[in-house]
Structure formats: structure tokens, C-alpha cells
């Protein structure tokens, strides 16, 4: 089974044809087209390695009313992703080999993208006792990323042990940095606006205090730490400092933290309620700067689906979280590529290559070269589209971008040569 992508621009470069045979890139450039090959007119489209999300919530098992592995990965494929890491805060929590293998298998059965389950750091994400990290690493799911995301591993001694323990299998602890005692009942970024709106504040210092602590711990025990959803200027500075020392720290930023600010809370519309919260314009500028200069290694969506009743209510009782898989590439194009802060090659590094590297996914984030798996995404950078919540492939509708116009559209996503997503109107021969 072969496919030819005609006239595509790999990493935004000069047009070329890409020949895919049996799930592998067979030729690039002026290719010899086999007679039975399916032809795809990709004129004007940019080809990137299939995107890899290091931070997604697929909600299954336990919260299938919000999302399932099937619906979540289908949305991921529509967003150009060929691999996603499914966070562990499910019900039951993914803290045993059994649960992570279940999630892994569900991903395989759905077939839309590879699902790499994230294992919880602590049993039940209760922050008390280490989960069986080794068993999860050895399981069929081959877990390498561990996170209590949703909660912070707050106990310093426990975090130290976790960092040390995962060295045995090249694992990484992904920390949700939020000092719990400073954020009791917190609803939005702490600042003049939270005081005005009467919403309990979530101070930047509560994130930065944990970031500082954990980069020091990671350096001390010489183990990798990954900082989830960096949201403040102070965190970016701390990570920059850590990297200048050569310490084993990586970091991610979400698309919404690249684009949206706390002012949206004025509407009291819980679509804009998220953890960590939307911050100030200064913080948004700092994370963009950090992503551009490599201080922040990757973009990760923190796709967090919620059923309607969890958002159709007053702010204080609404759930935290926003959808992200289907709009991630467009938001990064809007905030980083179109203004000239990143090239398409730079975007590929941050949304495919580096996430695969951090997650130790051998077959993703590969170069667009002969012999590599044909896991790619074709992007049409020129279109503008208005985001409509009703059109989402996710089971949930809590996107903060509803009604917004965003650039770029995914034309096709290929997972090992199979199209997992194709926009309507794509030409096949």
C-alpha cells in the first residue's frame, strides 16, 4: 500500500513529493510513483512529523462522560497528533501495571494515535506513598513518564525519592507545580483582578516555589525532572537559570497559556477556569519568549475535557480545565510562527521531536527522512477558521476559543502511513 504526497513542503521548506510505502517513508524529492499508489494533492501544505502531546487527559477509565480513549485520540488525530501521553488521574488512578496496560490497549484498539500512558507517582495520587513505578515501566505500556498531575507532589522528601527511583529505568517525573497550602480554594491568578472580582487568588509564587525546589532536587540527585504547564514569568526565569547550569530540567507550556490572559475571568465564564490559571500579559510574553529561546522545551496541550454541567454553573464550583488537542497547532502558529518567533522547523522541534525525546518514544518525532516511520501531519497554514465548539470531535465542549478565528488547518494526519484524519475535500486519486 503506497501513498504519494505531492508538492508538500517538509518543515516549511521547498516543495517535494513524499512517497510512503508500507508505513515507512520510501522516498523524498522527485519520486518515482508506483502505478497503484494513492495520490494526495498536497500543494501548499506543510509536512511536519506527527505531533506528540506529553500531557493529555483522556479520562478513561472512570470519566467516560467527559471523554474516552476513542474520542480523545480521534480528537488528537484531528489536531495532528500521532502520539499522546494520557495522564494518570483517572478513576481508578493509573498507579498499577493493570490500569496503564488497559489504557494502552484501548489506544491500540482505537487506532487513531499511539497512547503512552503516564503512571502516577504516588498511590491514588494521594501524595503519601510511591506507586509501583517499576511495574508500570516494565508493563506492556512501557511507562517512562510519571506524574500526579492534577495534584502536586508536595512532600519534598517523597519527590526526592521519586526522582531517584526512576533513574533505574530512564523515567522522568513530570511535576504539577502548585504548593497546596498557598492555593487553598484558589480560583484564578492572584493579582489586582482577583481582588476586584472577589475570587480567591492562586499566587505565582505557589508555582515558582515548587519549580525552584524541584530543579534543585533534580540537580542534586542527577535525575530528570519535567515541569508541567509552566505559566509564570518567574518559573521561566528559574528554568532558564537551571538550564544555564546544565541541570536535567525540561518544561512545557500549554497553548492557552501562550494566548489567553486572566482578563477573561471578568466574564465569570468558567470556560476560562483552568489550573494553573490564566495569568497576566507579562507572564504570557515571558512564556512565549521562553518557548522561543528553548527555555521551555515543548508545547503540551493539557487537554482537559469536562461535561457541560461542570462548566455551566458559577465559577466557584466549576471544574478546572480546557480542551486543547484540536486547536493546539493553530494557537502555536498564531502566537509563535506567524509573528516570526519560531520557524516551522522550530515548531516541529517543540511539538514533535522534543516531546518524543522526553517521553522516550522511539518511533515518534523522527526526522522526515527516508526509512523513518510515516507518522506525519500535513498543515494548510493559509486558512483562517472560526472555532466552533459544536464541531469538536471530543466528547466535551469546553474550549476557550469558541468564536475565535485561528490560523491554519490540519489537512491530513498519517500514523505509520495510515490516514487517521483527513479534512473534507482532500483529493485522493
Amino acid at each position, binding site marked *: 500500500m503506497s501513498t504519494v504526497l505531492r508538492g508538500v513542503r517538509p518543515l516549511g521548506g521547498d516543495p517535494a513529493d513524499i512517497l510512503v510505502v508500507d508505513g515507512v517513508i520510501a522516498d523524498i524529492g522527485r519520486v518515482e510513483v508506483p502505478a497503484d499508489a494513492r495520490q494526495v494533492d498536497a500543494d501548499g501544505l506543510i509536512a511536519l512529523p506527527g505531533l506528540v502531546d506529553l500531557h493529555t487527559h483522556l479520562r478513561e477509565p472512570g470519566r467516560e462522560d467527559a471523554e474516552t480513549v476513542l474520542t480523545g485520540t480521534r480528537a488528537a488525530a484531528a489536531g495532528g497528533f500521532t502520539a499522546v501521553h494520557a495522564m494518570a488521574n483517572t478513576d481508578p488512578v493509573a498507579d498499577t501495571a493493570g490500569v496503564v496496560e488497559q489504557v494502552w490497549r484501548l489506544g491500540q484498539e482505537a487506532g487513531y494515535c499511539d497512547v503512552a500512558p503516564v503512571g502516577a507517582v504516588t498511590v491514588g495520587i494521594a501524595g503519601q506513598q510511591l506507586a509501583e513505578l517499576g511495574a508500570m515501566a516494565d508493563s506492556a505500556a512501557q511507562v517512562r513518564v510519571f506524574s500526579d498531575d492534577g495534584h502536586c507532589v508536595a512532600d519534598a522528601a517523597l519527590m526526592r525519592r521519586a526522582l531517584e527511583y526512576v533513574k533505574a529505568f530512564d523515567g522522568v517525573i513530570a511535576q504539577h507545580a502548585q504548593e497546596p497550602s498557598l492555593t*487553598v*480554594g484558589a*480560583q484564578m491568578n*492572584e*493579582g*489586582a*483582578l*482577583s*481582588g*476586584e*472580582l*472577589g*475570587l480567591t*487568588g492562586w*499566587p505565582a509564587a505557589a508555582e515558582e516555589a515548587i519549580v525552584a525546589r524541584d530543579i534543585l532536587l533534580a540537580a542534586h540527585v542527577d535525575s530528570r525532572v519535567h515541569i508541567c504547564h509552566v505559566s509564570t514569568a518567574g518559573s521561566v526565569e528559574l528554568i532558564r537559570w537551571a538550564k544555564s547550569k546544565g541541570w536535567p530540567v525540561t518544561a512545557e507550556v500549554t497553548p492557552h497559556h501562550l494566548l489567553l490572559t486572566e482578563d477573561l475571568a471578568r*466574564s*465569570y465564564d468558567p470556560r476560562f477556569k483552568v489550573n494553573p490559571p490564566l495569568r497576566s500579559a507579562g507572564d504570557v510574553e515571558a512564556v512565549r519568549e521562553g518557548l522561543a529561546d528553548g527555555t521551555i522545551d515543548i508545547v503540551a496541550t493539557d487537554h482537559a475535557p469536562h461535561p457541560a*454541567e461542570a462548566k*455551566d*454553573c*458559577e*465559577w*466557584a*464550583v466549576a471544574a478546572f480545565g480546557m480542551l486543547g488537542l484540536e486547536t493546539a497547532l493553530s494557537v502555536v502558529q498564531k502566537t509563535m510562527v506567524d509573528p516570526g518567533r519560531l520557524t516551522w522547523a522550530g515548531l516541529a522541534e517543540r511539538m514533535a521531536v522534543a516531546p518524543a525525546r522526553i517521553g522516550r518514544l522511539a518511533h515518534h518525532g523522527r526526522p522526515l527522512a527516508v526509512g523513518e516511520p510515516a507518522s506525519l501531519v500535513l498543515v494548510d497554514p493559509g486558512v483562517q477558521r472560526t472555532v466552533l465548539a459544536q464541531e469538536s470531535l471530543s466528547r466535551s465542549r469546553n474550549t476557550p476559543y469558541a468564536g475565535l478565528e485561528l490560523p491554519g488547518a490540519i489537512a491530513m494526519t498519517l500514523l505509520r502511513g495510515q490516514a487517521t484524519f483527513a479534512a473534507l475535500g482532500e483529493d485522493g486519486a
Partner: protein
Amino acid sequence: MQHLLSTADLTRDEAILVLDTAEEMARLTDRAIKKLPTLRGRTVVNLFFEDSTRTRTSFELAAKRLSADVINFSAKGSSLSKGESLKDTALTLEAMGSDAIVVRHSASGAAHRLATAGWVSSRIVNAGDGTHEHPTQALLDAFTMRRHLGDLEGRRVVIVGDVLHSRVARSNVHLLHRLGAHVTVVGPPTLMPVGIDTWPCSVGYDLDAALPDADAVTMLRVQAERMTASYFPSAREYARRYGLDAVRLTTLPDHAVVLHPGPMNRGMEITADVADCDRSVIVEQVGNGVLVRMAVLYLLLGGSTEEEDR
């Protein structure tokens, strides 16, 4: 005026209109028949998710004096206690045909949600949402001050207490500033919100320094039920540093008045003798509350509403 959600949204003219209208409502209490037919046929729902007999009865009396039908929907004794959502409650009221909903809720922004989510077409009056705003309280406070001090332009008002958690403080600061008064908030630094330097008021931590210049002092209830811990070391220290007692009363100018939104913690932020002294207008505030709420309901419902225009 379509809704009354916050004093921050009121223009100076709108605020003065409410106060002047309340003055006219005051003449009503001189009559034998204390009723006006103006809101006959209108239905006002008191939707109280938080306990408050005082405010609820004030609104109820205001609505009834204007001949409106009143329904009290409180969190206890209805399906709300089983956890019916704000949205479903609102849809139920809409189906029953309420013209105005007076809502008190523990979540900041709840009134705003009711006004903008598209669940109801009623006029919304915010009777207190979380720690955000309590506009009718500020209006009745300003009405009371105006009665004793005249025009509030240039007057100095001191607000003392837990500003961080106080919707009364926020509403008062916005409204008094709009009316031209100069406001100083006083309290321990732990009870001042981050960013208060952006508010249109001065901030002080020393009560004794602020009193000699004040034309009016509002003591806020120190709300034990809203606090977790460590905002101040003890009730005794709070009362000593920020409580209004008879000694501090003597440092106030002779014409100055003392207000409190109630309910009072006698012995904490205010001593019994100050609460009951002749400079305290606390009881008068309650009566003025009915007048101001009558004015608000009249201005929201007394004329045409959108449905009738269509």
C-alpha cells in the same frame, strides 16, 4: 438600568437617581397606607442560597410595599438542598415567570452568571455574591451617610475590617468614590487583597491615625466563617488594634457617624456601647435598606421591560 450587579458598573447619575428615588420612597412611610401600586402584577423572587433573614426580609418588604408578588426561594426546604444547580433553579424560575430575581450566593460572580448566561430573562438584583459585591448595601450606606452629612463630595469615609473577604467593602469603595468621597480602608495587612493599591481608595494599617479626619466610619464584620487560619493571632489582638470602642469614639469628629452592615460581632469589631451610642446610625441603616431596595426595584421593574417593548 437593566440589572443591578455591582456598584462598579453604576454611573454617578444612576447612583444619584437611586438615592433620590429612595428619598421619595421615604415619604411613603409617613402615610397610613404604606403601599404603592407601581409593581402590581410583577413577580419578584428572592433567591437566597446563603442564609440571611435580614436582607431577605428587607427585599421582601420593599417588593410588597410596591405591590409586587414575592416568592422566597431559599436553599433550605427546596430541591436546592439536594444540589439542584444554579442553572436548573434559574430555568425553573423562568418557567414560572419571574420578573426580577434578587439573588444572594456564596460564589463570586453568581449574579453575573444569572444575568449573562441566557438562562433567564428576568432583571437580576445582586444581594451579595461571594466576596465580590453587595450593591444595595453600599447604596443604603451612602443614603444613610448623605442624610447625615449632605452631599458626599469631598467627605472622608473610613472602612475598617476584613476587606479581603468583604463584598460590602468593595461595593462601598466603588460607590463612594463615584459620589466624590475620599475613602480609606483600614485593617491588618493580612486582610487586604493583593492589588488593593489599584483600588480608588487609600490603605492604612493604623485605625487611630484614620479616625480624627473621618466624617463616617463603617465597621465591617470580621467574618470568622470565611477564614481558614492565621489572618490575625487572636480575637483579642484584633479587637485591640482594629475594634471601635468608646475611647476611639472620642477621637472622631463630633459630626461623624458610625455604620455597620450587620450582623455585628459585639466585642470584636465594635463594642456594645459604641453600637448603641447616639452617633451610631446602625439601626437607621436597616430602615434605609427597605427604601433603597424599593428604589432599585422600581427603577428596574417600574417601567417597561424588554419583553413589553417587543
